[in-house]
């Protein structure tokens, strides 16, 4: 490779590690505990997110088994309510958040040419706080009976509407585990977000102006800012709920004059930005992958940045579209319907710009690209069902029905998870030094895509037919039987798809060929170092002159900086 950034013949001596003389497993364990390396922490975030993904995915399997046929007795109601509560909570806070933070941790310093995050130890602190919040949440299955011997895991739904969470209706400690786990996770997320912001603002390499930052970094900067704004209300209402439950405060205690709607405002003022906190990283990954495999730069970089900032800004003013049924005035409903519909504009621009990036390119259907094309199609559907939900009057019918379930699974699986798969396949060679196996990945893509659509598309229809979400059973003859059965059958395909994914991760690590520094012929700085990168990332801190530094190196006759 024609580059002066990496000298391939130069070998750094292997740095001495703590516990090097011990056995391999002990050494790895010790390394994991003591490490402050952003790359190892990033991988730990992603790995623990994937483990929680499998656990709470299996909970969803149990849910679909119970709902496959009407009047089923496979799962009793109390267990069912815990399953969907834990599934929802875990998927948002223990799967989505850590995986996106994992990507940010691993890639932001590499992409901006830094040696580590700004605060490496705070980075490790953030990870461990998150990890223990996950352990705490799942420990509720054992610990929550507590002194009252009542209750087990939380069973109040992932948005835990008061007063169902009050002591009158939620005895035992299950809700406390939920509250404390989210509080703890919130601290971890705040720490990581502050770190991302400081890193991005202060540690960019020479020449990397804000206007030359990869879109990935831009989007994570926006995400981190949103976390800092959106998380405090969540933490505040968790504290208020705990005060209610143990200190006789009456914020949400309706029997003592509290307000049940107050909780919803607090929760959704966090909860709706949270949706964008989860999907913008998906956009970030797509904005890296699509250009590389189209062999063209991103179409309309400044507009993409502006659209992301606009989404973040608007998303702070739309929370009550989750509350169109609580009896707001027509003025309030109209306001939130309008603000929500405005989100469609920047989101539309983004989809068009991705298609514009592919237009006129030479598309290479490598695994990351396949998943990004799947993402574009599915996120289009998710966006359009989102428009339907934004129409307050239509939402009166659709709210809290299976249509909503279908909608947000299209957002979070069809959108976020597909880009996470894309991101994992894309940076797998960088992080582990081996190429992912294309055939296994193709099977993963095909089988999982079939499973995903077969599972979630019918849920739009059962929603139209009046099926409320979160019911543990339903009687035959409501017109829901067929759609639920199809939906449950789809789960089998999803499981097989995930198995292909897991097998691919392991198989490729052992048997696939070495990736080399830059297997995809890509353009951002992380490909300018070795795979996997050394602990110090770059031997010399690079200097950039455009948005695609490696393009400039590879094409000295036609560099980007001439055109930007």
């Amino acid at each position, binding site marked *: 490779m024609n580059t002066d950034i990496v000298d391939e013949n130069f070998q750094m001596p292997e740095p001495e590690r703590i516990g090097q003389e011990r056995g391999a497993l002990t050494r790895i364990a010790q390394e994991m505990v003591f490490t402050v390396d952003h790359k190892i922490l990033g991988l730990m975030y992603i790995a623990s997110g994937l483990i929680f993904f499998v656990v709470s995915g299996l909970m969803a399997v149990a849910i679909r088994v119970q709902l496959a046929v009407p009047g089923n007795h496979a799962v009793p109601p109390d267990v069912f309510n815990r399953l969907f509560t834990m599934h929802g909570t875990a998927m948002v806070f223990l799967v989505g958040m850590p995986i996106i933070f994992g990507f940010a941790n691993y890639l932001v310093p590499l992409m901006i040419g830094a040696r580590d995050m700004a605060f490496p130890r705070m980075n490790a602190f953030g990870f461990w706080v998150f990890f223990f919040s996950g352990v705490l949440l799942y420990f509720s299955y054992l610990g929550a009976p507590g002194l009252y011997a009542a209750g087990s895991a939380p069973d109040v739904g992932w948005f835990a509407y008061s007063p169902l969470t009050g002591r009158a209706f939620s005895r035992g400690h299950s809700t406390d585990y939920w509250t404390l786990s989210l509080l703890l996770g919130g601290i971890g997320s705040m720490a990581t977000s502050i770190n991302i912001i400081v890193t991005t603002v202060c540690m960019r390499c020479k020449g990397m102006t804000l206007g030359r930052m990869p879109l990935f970094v831009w989007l994570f900067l926006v995400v981190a800012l949103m976390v800092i704004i959106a998380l405090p209300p969540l933490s505040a209402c968790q504290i208020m709920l705990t005060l209610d439950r143990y200190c006789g405060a009456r914020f949400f205690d309706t029997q003592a004059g509290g307000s049940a709607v107050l909780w919803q405002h607090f929760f959704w003022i966090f909860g709706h930005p949270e949706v964008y906190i989860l999907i913008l990283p998906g956009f970030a990954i797509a904005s890296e992958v699509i250009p590389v495999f189209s062999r063209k730069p991103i179409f309309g970089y400044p507009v993409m940045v502006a659209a992301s900032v606009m989404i973040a800004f608007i998303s702070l003013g739309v929370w009550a579209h989750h509350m169109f049924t609580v009896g707001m005035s027509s003025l309030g409903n*109209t306001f939130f319907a309008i603000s929500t519909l405005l989100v469609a504009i920047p989101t539309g621009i983004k989809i068009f710009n991705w298609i514009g990036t592919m237009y006129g390119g*030479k598309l290479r259907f490598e695994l990351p690209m396949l998943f990004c094309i799947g993402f574009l199609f599915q996120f289009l559907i998710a966006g359009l*069902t989102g428009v339907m939900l934004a*129409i307050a*009057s239509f939402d009166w019918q659709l709210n809290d029905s299976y249509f909503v379930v279908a909608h947000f699974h299209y957002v979070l699986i069809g959108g976020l998870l597909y880009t996470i798969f894309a991101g994992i396949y894309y940076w797998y060679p960088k992080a582990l030094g081996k190429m992912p196996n294309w055939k296994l990945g193709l099977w993963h893509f095909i089988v999982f895509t079939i499973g995903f659509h077969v599972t979630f598309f019918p849920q739009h229809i059962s929603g139209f037919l*009046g099926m409320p979400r979160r019911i543990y059973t339903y009687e035959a003859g409501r017109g829901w039987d067929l759609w639920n059965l199809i939906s449950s059958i789809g789960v089998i395909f999803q499981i097989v798809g995930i198995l292909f994914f897991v097998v691919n991760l392991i198989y490729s690590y052992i048997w696939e060929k070495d990736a080399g520094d830059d297997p995809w012929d890509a353009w951002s700085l992380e490909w300018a170092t070795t795979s996997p990168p050394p602990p110090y990332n770059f031997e010399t801190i690079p200097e950039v002159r455009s948005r695609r530094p490696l393009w400039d190196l590879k094409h000295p006759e*036609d560099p980007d900086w001439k055109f930007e």
Partner: protein
Amino acid sequence: MRQVSDMFEPLSRPAEMIHQSALLVLLITAGIFVVVTAMLVYVVWKFRHRGAEDKLQEPPQIYGSSHIELAWTVIPILITFVLILVTSRTIGEVQNAPMPKNAIQVKLIGHQWWWEVRYPEEGIVTANEIHVPVSSRAVERRLPTAILLESADVIHSFWVPQLTGKTDLIPNRTNKTWIEPFATGTFFGSCAAFCGLQHANMLLRVILHEPEDYQRWLAKMKASAKAPASPLAEQGRKDFFANSCVNCHQIDGTIAKGGFGPNLTKLMTRQTLGAGVAPLNQKNLSEWLRDPQKLKVGCLMPDMKLQASQIDSITAYLMTLE
């Protein structure tokens, strides 16, 4: 009985208003879907990478185009503007609809996990089934039903898709909704907001009568109770009042004045038991009395450990309440 509650078969004025705007929105979104999917498929097919020699040369590097980007910013803005008009209009139409003076007044109170239905003007209290007259499409003969929504414990949500969209029942707050049905029959709904263990079995029926039939139903609900005819039912009456049933249930004109459970004054006028968990008949009723937890796990009526003879007699007594 067909129990499908399809929101695209509206049979009530507010549901029809919602339906109309929904159809327009569906049409617009379907149009967007077709156009954008076509673009995506075209681009993916047309610009796929062909052959190995193709790899050697990079395509022309295009960084953007302010004209094209402006075009696909303006078009979404226009579409969004149309959608904003549609939704604002329907919100106003449904929420601010004037109610005529003769509108039927119903108060619906949500409990874990059943519905209390009150007719304040008539002094009637029943449960899990709302009886209302059908209205007329002619404006001067409108007969809508205004429903006040309250909750005794946690948040519930009223949803009968063919009659109207959801409105929540929130403790410490009175919400309003209305229906104006155009067809007779039984319509199915349920609680739509997760309200605890038996959320799934908090079902609701709305039974629509011709106005004359509705008057007959009112008269029947107001008629005073007949004395139990059989000795078994008479024994059941004694057993009922000798046990703690009276603490939670009310039977008008007796000392049973409990307000925690459903009012039993006209129990046998209802179609179902336990908010839709089973059809109301002698077999299910005695099953319920033997142990309510069998039919509806976790419901707030405890197993009263009645003796077999008491179960028979109380069942016989309750069967007379019509």
